[in-house]
C-alpha cells in the first residue's frame, strides 16, 4: 500500500515538475535515459562482479543530472561504436561515456563540457620520453576504435608523409583494456588515451606503463555530455552543469574517482601481479555474473535456432517446390542474409531499424529481442539449406508409397518425410547450433549482457584478462561438449538406417 502510494507519487511528481519547470525535451515520462560504454574506468565502468552495477565519474554525473531534473536515470550499456547511433535512434536522451568535445561530433550533435583533460601517449616503463607525435614515425600505436584518436593520428601521418617520413602504424581495438593489453604484451609501442583513464589504470597495472608524451591537441581538452541537436535543450543542460560546477559538485566527483591533476602521485611502483591467479579464475567461474552470462548465451542461441528451424522448414519446402514468385523471393532472402555479415545485421536491426520504424526505439524492443530477431533471420538462411538437402535426400519413392496408401500431404510429411529428413539434418544442424552459440558473442555490440560481454566488462575492471578469458572459455567448451554428447545420444536412436547396428540391437 505504502509502496503503491510512493510509486504513484514518483510518477506524479516529475509530471508536475515538467509543467512547472522547463525540462529538456530528452527528459520525459519521468525518465532520463543514458547511453554509456562501461569499459572506461574511472569515467564509466562496472564496479564489482555485478554487471549491472555501473560506476564512475560519468555515472555519478548522470545520476546527479537526473536528480537535478527530479527524474529516474535509466542507463543502457553498449559498445562504444553503438553510442551515437543509439542517440540518433532516440534510444537514449544523452551519451556520457568519456567522450571528448570535438568539432567533428558537434556537426551532428550538441555537447556540453563537464571535465578538463589532456591526451597522453603511454608506453611500457623504461621507454624514453619523446618530444612530439612525429617521433612515433614508423612505430605501431593502438587506440580504441570509434574514438577520434585514429583521425588525429591520420592527420599526423599526413604531415609525416609530406615530410617523406614513415607514417605511424595504427591498430584499433574495440575496448580500452584491449588497447592497454597490446602495450603490456609488447605488440605495440604505445597507446593514446586520456590522462584520467591512466590515473585509474596505474593502480591496476602496478606502474608498468609510463607517459611518454602529452601532445597538445585542442580537440581533446574536455569531456562532454552529448545530446541530439536542440539549442533549447543545450541551454538547459549547460545551465544544469554550470550550477553543479559552481557548487563544487563536479570537482568533488572528480576527486572521488582519483582524477587529480597530480600525475606523479599515482605513478609509483607496486609489486607485480602473479602470472595466473587461480582465485580470480575460480571466482569468475562460479560468479553469478558469469553464470548469468552463460545462461543468456545459451537461451538466446536455443531460442534463435528453434525459431530459425521453425521458419526454415516451410521455406525449404517452398524452395524445393516449383518455380514461383515466392520461391524467387525466398531465394533472395537466403542470398541476402547469408551474404551480409552477422555483425552488420545485428547493428542494422538495432540501430537502423528505429530510423525507419519508430516503434523499434521503444523500451519493449530490448537488446534481447533484437538479438533474437536478427539471429533467427540470419540462422534461418543457413538452416534452410540443411533442410532442403535433407528433404531432397528422402527417396521420392517414399512419397509415392504414401500417396498410393491414400495418405494426405500433411500426413506424408509428418509421418514419412520429416522423420527420415531429421536423421539427415541432425548432424549439420547441431554443427550450426554450436556455431550459433559462439556467434551470440557478437550481440555484445548491441549491449546484450551475454558471456563475452560479461567477460570484457570484468577484464576492463580488473585487468586480469587471462583469468577471465579462461573462465569464459570453460563455459563455452562445456556448452559445446554437452551438445556434441547430445548429438551422439540422439544418433543412437536412428538404428533403422544402419543394418549392422539394427541387427546388433536386436541380438
Amino acid at each position: 500500500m505504502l509502496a503503491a502510494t510512493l510509486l504513484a507519487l514518483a510518477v506524479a511528481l516529475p509530471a508536475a515538475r515538467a509543467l512547472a519547470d522547463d525540462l529538456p525535451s530528452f527528459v520525459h515520462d519521468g525518465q532520463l535515459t543514458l547511453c554509456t560504454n562501461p569499459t572506461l574506468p574511472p569515467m564509466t565502468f562496472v564496479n564489482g562482479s555485478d554487471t549491472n552495477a555501473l560506476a564512475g565519474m560519468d555515472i555519478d554525473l548522470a545520476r546527479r543530472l537526473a536528480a537535478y531534473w527530479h527524474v529516474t536515470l535509466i542507463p543502457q550499456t553498449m559498445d562504444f561504436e553503438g553510442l551515437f547511433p543509439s542517440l540518433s535512434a532516440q534510444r537514449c536522451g544523452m551519451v556520457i561515456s568519456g567522450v571528448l568535445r570535438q568539432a567533428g561530433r558537434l556537426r551532428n550533435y550538441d555537447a556540453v563540457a563537464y571535465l578538463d583533460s589532456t591526451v597522453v601517449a603511454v608506453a611500457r616503463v623504461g621507454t624514453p620520453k619523446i618530444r612530439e607525435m612525429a617521433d612515433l614515425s614508423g612505430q605501431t600505436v593502438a587506440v580504441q576504435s570509434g574514438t577520434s584518436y585514429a583521425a588525429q593520428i591520420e592527420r599526423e601521418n599526413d604531415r609525416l608523409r609530406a615530410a617523406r617520413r614513415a607514417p605511424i602504424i595504427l591498430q584499433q581495438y574495440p575496448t580500452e583494456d584491449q588497447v592497454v593489453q597490446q602495450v603490456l604484451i609488447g605488440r605495440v609501442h604505445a597507446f593514446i588515451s586520456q590522462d584520467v583513464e591512466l590515473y585509474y589504470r596505474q593502480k591496476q597495472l602496478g606502474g608498468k606503463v609510463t607517459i611518454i608524451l602529452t601532445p597538445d591537441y585542442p580537440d581533446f581538452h574536455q569531456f562532454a555530455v552529448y545530446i541530439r541537436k536542440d539549442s533549447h535543450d543545450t541551454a538547459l543542460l549547460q545551465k544544469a552543469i554550470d550550477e553543479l560546477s559552481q557548487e563544487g559538485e563536479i570537482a568533488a566527483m572528480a576527486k572521488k574517482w582519483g582524477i587529480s591533476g597530480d600525475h606523479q602521485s599515482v605513478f609509483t611502483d607496486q609489486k607485480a601481479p602473479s602470472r595466473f591467479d587461480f582465485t580470480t579464475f575460480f571466482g569468475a567461474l562460479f560468479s553469478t555474473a558469469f553464470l548469468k552470462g552463460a545462461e543468456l548465451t545459451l537461451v538466446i542461441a536455443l531460442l534463435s535456432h528453434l525459431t530459425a528451424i521453425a521458419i526454415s522448414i516451410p521455406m525449404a519446402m517452398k524452395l524445393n517446390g516449383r518455380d514461383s514468385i515466392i520461391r524467387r523471393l525466398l531465394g533472395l532472402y537466403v542470398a541476402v542474409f547469408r551474404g551480409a555479415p552477422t555483425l552488420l545485421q545485428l547493428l542494422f536491426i538495432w540501430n537502423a531499424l528505429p530510423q525507419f520504424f519508430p516503434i523499434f526505439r521503444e523500451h519493449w524492443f530490448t537488446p534481447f529481442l533484437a538479438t533474437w530477431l536478427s539471429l533467427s533471420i540470419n540462422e534461418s538462411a543457413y538452416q534452410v539449406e540443411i533442410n532442403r538437402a535433407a528433404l531432397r535426400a528422402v527417396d521420392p519413392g517414399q512419397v509415392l508409397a504414401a500417396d498410393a496408401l491414400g495418405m494426405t500431404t500433411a500426413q506424408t510429411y509428418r509421418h514419412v518425410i520429416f522423420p527420415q529428413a531429421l536423421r539427415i539434418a541432425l548432424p549439420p544442424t547441431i554443427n550450426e547450433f554450436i556455431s550459433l552459440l559462439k556467434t551470440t558473442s557478437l550481440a555484445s555490440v548491441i549491449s546484450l549482457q551475454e558471456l563475452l560481454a560479461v567477460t570484457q566488462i570484468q577484464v576492463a575492471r580488473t585487468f586480469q584478462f587471462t583469468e577471465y578469458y579462461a573462465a569464459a572459455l570453460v563455459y563455452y567448451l562445456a556448452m559445446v561438449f554437452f551438445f556434441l554428447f547430445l548429438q551422439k545420444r540422439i544418433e543412437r536412436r536412428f538404428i533403422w538406417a544402419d543394418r549392422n547396428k539394427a541387427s546388433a540391437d536386436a541380438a
Partner: protein
Amino acid sequence: MQLSTSPDPTARISIRGLSKFYKDYLALDRIDLDISKGEKIVVLGPSGSGKSTFIRCLNRIEPHDSGVLMIDGRIIDDRTNLTALRGSVGMVFQNYNLFPHLSVLDNCTLAPQLVRGITKSDAEATARRYLSQVNIAEQAEKFPIQLSGGQQQRVAIARALCMNPEIILFDEPTAALDPESISGIVGIMRDLAEQGITTVCVTHEMGFARHIADRIVFMDRGAVLEVTPPEEFFTAPRTERARTFLAQMIRH
C-alpha cells in the same frame, strides 16, 4: 474381341479411350480394356512403352487427360475422393518403397490408422494376419533394412493388403528378386486371386507372366496392341511388334 464404346459398369475396371500426355509427348494412346473381378492381368511391353504410366493412372497417382476410367461402376476423374480410391486400389513397387524408419509392423499399420481411422490394436491384428499370409510374421518387429529383398517385397504386399483393397497394382514386383523369391511372390499372387482380389502386374519376366496371367496386355508406344490369354500370346502373338518383342526377350 471388340469392346463397346461406353464403359461396362459391371466390370471391376473398365477403360475407354484412356490417353495421357507428358507435355506434348503422348504417353498413353486411347487405351480400351475391361478387367473383371479376381482377374490376373499382366502388362508386357518394351521399355518406355507406357506400362508404368498406365497402371499409375488406375489409382490416379498419374491423372489421365482424356477417355474414361471406371472402377466398380464409378467414374474416376478429378472429383473422385482419392483417399477412398487408394483404399480400394493398392500398389506395390519394384523397389518396395517400405518406410525405412518404421518396423515391419508399423509399416503395415500406419496408413490404416491414419487413413481408415482404425485403432492401433485392430490395425496390428490385421497386419499380423496378412504378414503370416505372406509368410513373414516372425519379422514383424524388424526394420526393413534387416530384411532380404524378397522379404521386403512380401512386407510391401502385406502393407497393401492391410488397406483391404479390391485391386492391387504391381509395378515390376520381381525385378530386384532372385528366382526363389520370385516363386514365393507367384504363390502369393495366386492366393490374392482366390480371395477375389484383382491384380494388374507389369513385369519383364516372361516365365512369371506365363505362370500368373489370366490375360496378357501387350503395350507399345502408349497403345495396347494385344489382349490375349498367355498360351496364345507366347505361342501365336497376333501382331508383328509382339513377335519381335518376344524374340528379343527370349534371346536375352
